């Protein structure tokens, strides 16, 4: 398991590219994770700025790709949080663009998958939940607590339902972050495990070269599946963000 060619966990190692030294026992360093996050932001900015710089009434291919991305997020947000929710559009669009690009960049061989680390996805999920809680209290005041008490509830079972609602609200950041993290981690692990079979088989001799075709084909098929998962998980993260933001705008349900 220590051979980096076969070890499926090797791809998740965070290495320092250069260190700025320690401040109060915490090391400040530019890691490969940070480099890829910078790359992601540069890619998104370049795509959106370049594709919309020559705004035409008849869009070019790049422009319609950017417009399609805008439309998908705008429609999702409008259908789940209403037109009032469009105030949160820049936030939701940034999250969608970041998660989508991070997932897709991670599929390039030798590239680092930023979203396969729980700290990144937890930071994103906490950002979403804190936005919901803070803006929920600002918009509705104490009325935001109605989110825990569904309307039209008989008094007898209200305490139990409220308890369950509080539990489900508290588990939201956990499930939101673990879903993205688990999907990306598991997908990349399976990919690398099958790729490791190819390496082990070819090392076994000439017969292994032909037997290695099977796991190689599996790796290709899994890569196609991972593209689907990458886009789907970015979309799911966005939908759930929209649903949670809807709670902040319309707390009584």
């Amino acid at each position, binding site marked *: 398991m220590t051979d980096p060619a076969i070890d499926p*966990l090797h791809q998740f190692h965070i290495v320092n590219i250069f260190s700025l030294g320690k401040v109060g026992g915490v090391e400040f360093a530019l890691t490969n994770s940070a480099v890829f996050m910078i790359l992601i932001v540069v890619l998104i900015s370049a795509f959106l700025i370049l594709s919309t710089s020559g705004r035409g009434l008849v869009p070019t291919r790049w422009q319609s790709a950017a417009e399609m991305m805008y439309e998908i997020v705008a429609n*999702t947000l409008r*259908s*789940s949080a209403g037109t009032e929710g469009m105030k949160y559009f820049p936030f939701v669009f940034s999250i969608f663009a970041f998660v989508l690009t991070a997932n897709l960049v991670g599929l390039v061989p030798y590239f680092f998958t930023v979203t396969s680390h729980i700290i990144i996805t937890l930071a994103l999920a906490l950002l979403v939940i804190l936005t919901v809680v803070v803006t929920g209290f600002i918009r509705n005041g104490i009325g935001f607590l109605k989110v825990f008490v569904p309307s039209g509830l008989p008094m007898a079972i209200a305490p139990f339902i409220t308890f369950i609602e509080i539990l489900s609200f508290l588990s939201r950041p956990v*499930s939101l972050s*673990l*879903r993205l*993290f*688990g*999907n990306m*981690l*598991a997908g990349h692990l399976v990919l690398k495990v099958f790729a490791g079979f190819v390496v082990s088989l070819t090392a076994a001799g000439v017969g292994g070269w032909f037997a290695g075709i099977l796991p190689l084909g599996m790796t290709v098929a899994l890569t196609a599946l991972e593209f689907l998962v990458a886009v*789907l998980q970015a*979309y*799911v993260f966005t*939908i*759930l963000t929209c*649903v949670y933001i809807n709670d902040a705008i319309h707390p009584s349900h």
Partner: protein
Amino acid sequence: MDAEAARMIGAGIACFGMAGAAIAVGNIFGNYLTGALRNPSAAPSQFTNTLIGAALAEGLGIFSLVIAFLLIFVG
């Protein structure tokens, strides 16, 4: 039984939780397709709800996968 073996067996047992998530996700998409084939014009409007349901069900399966990973790789 030594602790290492018990951890590995525990990780294997934890993976059974994902069977439930697999059944749930299959159920959701199967029922979505059934409904979509009966009334194709109403299908696009319900696709978002389908994805939300699938995501929520799948998240619970991911929990058990994370437990398995924790058992294998941590500690």
